[in-house]
C-alpha cells in the first residue's frame, strides 16, 4: 500500500477523476488541442451538444458540419491566427446541435507554454451565449425601428409643412387677384 508507484498512480487517478468531474460539471463545452490545433480532449457536454466525439474531430467533416456556413471562414481565420501567434483565441460563432438547430457560442482558448516558450497545448471553452445574442438582436432591431420611426416623423412633418406652404401660396394668389 505504501508503494510509491501505487501512491503516485492513485493520486493521478484521483486528479483525473476530479478533472473529469469538474470539466463535465461546468456549463461550458471544453476542448483541448495540441500546438497544431489537433483535438485531444472534449468534455461530455461537447459530445452531448454536438453529437461528435474525439474520433470524429479528425479531418474537416466535424467542423464543416458543426459550424454555421456563414461563420466557417472567419472561424478558420481567427483560429489560424491564434495557432500561428499564440495569441488568446476569442470568437463568437454558431454551432449546430445534434438536433439540427444552431446556437451562438463564445469560443475562447488560452495556450499553455513549455519552458522554452513553445506552445504545449491549447485549453478552450465554448460558452452558450444564445440568449444574450437574441437580446442583442432584438435591441438592434428595436434601435433600427426607432431610427426609422424618427426618420418617418421628420419627413412627414416636412411633407405637411410643404402642403401648408402650398395652401398659403394659393391663398396669397387668391387675395392678390
Amino acid at each position, binding site marked *: 500500500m505504501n508503494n510509491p508507484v501505487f501512491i503516485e498512480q492513485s493520486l493521478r487517478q484521483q486528479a483525473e477523476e476530479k478533472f473529469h468531474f469538474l470539466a463535465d460539471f461546468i456549463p461550458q463545452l471544453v476542448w483541448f488541442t495540441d500546438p497544431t490545433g489537433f483535438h485531444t480532449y472534449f468534455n461530455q457536454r461537447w459530445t452531448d451538444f454536438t453529437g461528435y466525439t474525439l474520433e470524429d474531430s479528425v479531418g474537416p467533416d466535424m467542423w464543416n458540419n458543426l459550424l454555421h456556413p456563414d461563420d466557417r471562414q472567419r472561424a478558420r481565420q481567427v483560429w489560424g491566427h491564434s495557432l500561428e501567434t499564440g495569441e488568446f483565441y476569442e470568437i463568437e460563432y454558431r454551432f449546430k446541435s445534434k438536433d439540427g438547430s444552431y446556437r451562438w457560442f463564445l469560443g475562447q482558448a488560452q495556450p499553455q507554454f513549455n519552458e522554452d516558450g513553445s506552445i504545449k497545448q491549447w485549453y478552450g471553452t465554448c460558452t452558450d451565449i444564445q440568449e444574450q445574442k437574441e437580446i442583442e438582436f432584438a435591441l438592434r432591431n428595436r434601435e433600427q425601428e426607432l431610427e426609422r420611426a424618427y426618420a*418617418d416623423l421628420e*419627413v*412627414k412633418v*416636412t*411633407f*405637411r409643412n*410643404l*402642403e401648408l406652404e402650398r395652401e398659403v401660396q394659393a391663398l396669397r394668389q387668391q387675395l392678390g387677384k
Partner: protein
Amino acid sequence: MPELLFDINLLEMPDDYLNGEWCVEDRVLNRNNPDSPLARATKLSLQPGSLLVQAPDTENSGQWSMERDSLLNRPYLELQLLQEETRALITRLRRSTDGLHSQLILYFQSGMELQLARPC
C-alpha cells in the same frame, strides 16, 4: 410562414413597383375627413396613369402620378379623384425578393395613413 419583405430604397424606386391592385390592410384616419373615398377605401388599383378606389358601397376612378420634391427624400403620389384631390407621401415600400408580395405605406396630407398590401 409570412413572406419576408425587404425595404425598397424609395429614392431609386421605379414607378412600376406601384402598379397593381392593393388592399387596405390598416388605416389611421384623420378626424376631419373620415368619410372621404380614400378614407373608406378597401382596395386601390394603380395602373399606369389611372386609379380606381373601391369602398364597400362605391367605386371612384381618377388619375395618379408619382412625384418627387427636392425637400423630401421620398416620393409622393398625386391622387386625383372626382370628389377628392390629394397627395400621399410614400413612407415605406417593402417587397419580397420575387416581387410577388409587397407592402406600401402612404401618409396623406390630411394626416391619414394607409397600409396597403398585395396580393389581396
